[in-house]
């Protein structure tokens, strides 16, 4: 029997856990990753949802993992290939041609909107660029004398200052604003407004009129700086496999089908984990990729935490509002006005800001949207290996689907599926007839399938009050928890979810900065 002691045990083999493990192993630590599911990846996995049909089961696009990290971990040497890069976005319309949204230009919009577009994306990208170092850094603590904390704050201040007077003023003006008002200032076309507003509310408990929705838009853009929308060959699971290979190459071990029962405390510090099998693995540091509520309340337990801290953790907003729909199709669907090429891009059903806000309204009262906003991808256009020959897969993110549906998902599931398919049908006539199999994952399903409390793909809502120095909660915002030797590395930490990997890397830096 070999030793069951490691310098570092990572609980959860999601992408952040794997990134963290890779960097820790590179730092010379002995590392073990424990994954409860039968494959690593967490919410970045490819699964067969119908015989012969595979799909990225939760996250379906890569838009925020930086090229620098992909190069640094040599993921392409470890098998990562892209079936599409720089994917274009199309705003679908039922009564006309779609609008194509490019990096700097828009086609299909009115002359005035097309003229306004470069100025708008230019401004937002400059602001996002200024905020990007914030995403990369370990959040500072306030009121300390530590140089690292001061440097981060100074750097952030400097980045904003060097935006210049005009942009800085604009950042302060629009930073807390809602996307609805911002987009109404810039554009006239409802279709263009709706599509641009969609990114402000994607994956969050926001409607375009919610205060702070410009912030989530800037956040998404900042994450996407230097990381264009792309689709890994073989789905997001292929990215996780590459990360696992990179971690393994650095010396980390990965065990799947190994759920952790609880975190072990000895002499007032984290000392390892107890598996559900009863096996004990001791470690100098325990790094949790699991969401903060599950980490603190379930794996650790309140007995090792201050009551006020536990209360803050329990008040984290963790309820997801985005559902995932997977369709196995007989053939390639035909979206009205959309060319064959465009089907390999990202298709948005969000015809106006009013439509989007109305879709959100339902969720506030525990109802699903009767006219949902949808992000559609047809991954098999770029990557035919995901389905049998000539057949296709449609993968859609659908908003809004409340975690706690008033009538319960048992009751409401079929009705919501019908609503989504009807909506898709109105944009792609004939689609419903070609469906071989369909699968809907509500936030409640996502919670169960991917072990995320509340089923929120960011683990905890991304909003001003749960961001940066306050993510997940003050007292655990620097990846180090109040318990010595216990760290967090998941999406519940700064800078949050989306398949980014920064939380995992920053956590590894924090662990390596201390004696393991």
């Amino acid at each position: 029997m070999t030793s069951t002691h490691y310098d570092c045990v990572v609980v959860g083999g999601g992408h952040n856990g794997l990134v963290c493990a890779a960097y820790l192993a590179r730092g010379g630590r002995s590392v073990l990753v424990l994954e409860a599911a039968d494959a690593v990846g967490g919410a970045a996995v490819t699964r067969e949802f119908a015989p012969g049909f595979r799909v990225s089961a939760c996250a379906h696009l890569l838009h925020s993992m930086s090229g620098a990290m992909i190069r640094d971990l040599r993921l392409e040497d470890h098998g990562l290939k892209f079936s599409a890069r720089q994917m274009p976005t199309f705003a679908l319309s039922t009564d006309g041609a779609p609008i194509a949204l490019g990096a700097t230009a828009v086609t299909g919009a009115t002359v005035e909107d097309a003229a306004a577009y470069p100025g708008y994306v230019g401004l937002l990208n400059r602001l996002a660029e200024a905020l990007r170092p914030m995403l990369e850094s370990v959040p500072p603590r306030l009121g300390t004398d530590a140089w690292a904390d001061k440097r981060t704050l100074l750097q952030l201040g400097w980045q904003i200052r060097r935006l210049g007077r005009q942009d800085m003023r604009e950042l302060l003006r629009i930073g807390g604003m809602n996307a609805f008002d911002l987009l109404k200032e810039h554009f006239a076309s409802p279709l263009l407004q709706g599509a641009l507003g969609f990114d402000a509310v994607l994956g969050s408990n926001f409607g375009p009129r919610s205060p702070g929705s410009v912030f989530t838009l800037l956040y998404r853009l900042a994450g996407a700086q230097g990381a264009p929308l792309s689709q890994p060959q073989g789905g997001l699971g292929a990215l996780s496999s590459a990360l696992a290979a990179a971690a393994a190459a650095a010396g980390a071990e990965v065990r799947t089908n190994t759920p952790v029962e609880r975190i072990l405390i000895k002499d007032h510090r984290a000392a390892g984990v107890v598996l559900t099998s009863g096996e004990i693995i001791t470690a100098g540091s325990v790094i949790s990729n699991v969401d903060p509520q599950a980490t603190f309340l379930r794996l650790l337990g309140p007995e090792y935490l201050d009551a006020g801290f536990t209360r803050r953790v329990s008040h984290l907003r963790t309820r997801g509002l985005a559902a995932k729909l997977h369709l196995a199709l007989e053939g390639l669907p035909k979206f009205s006005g959309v060319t064959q090429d465009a089907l390999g891009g990202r298709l948005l059903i969000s015809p106006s800001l009013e439509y989007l806000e109305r879709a959100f309204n339902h969720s506030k009262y525990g109802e699903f949207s009767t006219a949902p906003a949808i992000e559609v991808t047809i991954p098999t256009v770029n990557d035919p290996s995901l389905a049998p020959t000539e057949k296709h897969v449609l993968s859609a993110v659908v908003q809004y689907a409340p975690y706690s549906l008033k009538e319960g998902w048992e009751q409401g599931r079929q009705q919501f599926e019908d609503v989504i398919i009807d909506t898709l049908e109105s944009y792609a006539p004939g689609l419903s007839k070609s469906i071989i199999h369909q699968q809907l994952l509500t936030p409640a399903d996502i919670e169960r399938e991917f072990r995320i409390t509340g089923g929120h793909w960011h683990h905890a809502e991304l909003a001003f009050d749960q961001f940066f120095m306050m993510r997940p909660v003050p007292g655990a915002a620097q990846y180090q928890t109040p318990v010595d030797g216990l760290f967090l590395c998941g999406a519940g930490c700064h800078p949050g979810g989306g398949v980014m990997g920064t939380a995992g890397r920053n956590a590894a830096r924090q662990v390596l900065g201390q004696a393991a």
Partner: protein
Amino acid sequence: MRNPEISLHKAPDPSPAVMVVPSPPHYVQPLLKTPFHNRARALSQVDSFIPWAGYTTVDVFTNVEHEYFAIRNGTTLYDLTPMVKYRIAGPAAQRFLNRLVSRDITKLKVGRVAYCVWCDDAGHLIDDGTVFRLSEDEYRLCTAERQLDWLLSSAIGFDHLVIEEVTEQIAALAMQGPTSYSVLAHAGLQGVERLKPFELGAFAVADGISLMVSRTGFTGDLGYELWMDPAHAERVWDVLMAAGQTRGMRPIGSKALNIARIEAGFLQPNVDFVSSAHTVHIGRDRSPLELGLEWLVDFDKPYFTGRRALVEEKRRGPTRRLVGLDIDGNKPAHNALLYSDRGGRKEVGSVTSATWSPTCKRNIALAMIDAPHFTTGSTVWADIYLNRELVWERRMVRARVVERPFFAPDRRKATPPGNF
């Protein structure tokens, strides 16, 4: 009458199995009357009542000096009903309490009582109180102030736990003084002599009425606290008063008790410290280490709220401490500022409680003093103001830092207790 609003006390989301039994609406009438109120009203000679935790209670029955000397020389009855009481029960009760208070509750056996404090995350005192272990999985927490919000916060993450406020379901009397045991024995409580300090038991008193008796109190002397069904309150009062007739028994109010508790060195919330739940300004909270309650803090047990902060505070060393003062002269140093020098140039603290101790014949006080002046044997100067027929006089009086308690007779611990 039940106000529907109070039933909204719900367990927080992550611990749906925590059941919270609503407390009755103590705010429906401004001041409630305790089950002993009619008896107290009949015996009150000076009509001196004060509000206490939502109840009207006696401050003085006849005369403070008479009542005080009854505590030290006879037996006294003090209505303890307003003391806030929580029933904490269920398989998780011990784990919950052990994380709440700074003492090791796993060492508390069934039938025993422990004086405890609990802190917030920063290690600042929220309140002190007593924990009674009634059975394997059932405890009672007695506190000066209502704690439901903090108890609910502390319950997050615990399953199978009941937290119920039972203040109004239990009437309570403190029976304190050197003859308290003999009065209880005379009243027919058989076996009460076996109770050791901080022990509790059930005893029959009369007509099949059963009492829970704990050998606890707030006077630093021999004494008991009696816990009963409010329906039996008046009957028990009558039986005890009759049994005490020849043993110097009298009812007392809060004023006399306050002198005794200062002699015993006990702390009074909102007098000697302010709960961190109520302080507004930084630096006005107090930690158990600062209050001289380090003996209640077990750093070796797995965890309790505030441990991390207290470990750090202990490492840094104390900046101030609550200590006893022995002050020259006989003028109580109420609210006096303390100086390191007679000239009053350097302020080093202030008095929180002061009294002339009739039993010790000393002018005593509790005071919060800055480092390093709090060490036993140090001398500080108390700035005492005296109002003499509306003419204010100011005296700078020498005071020595001394150990607490000021009064601790052996009879308080003797088992069996003396049959005076």
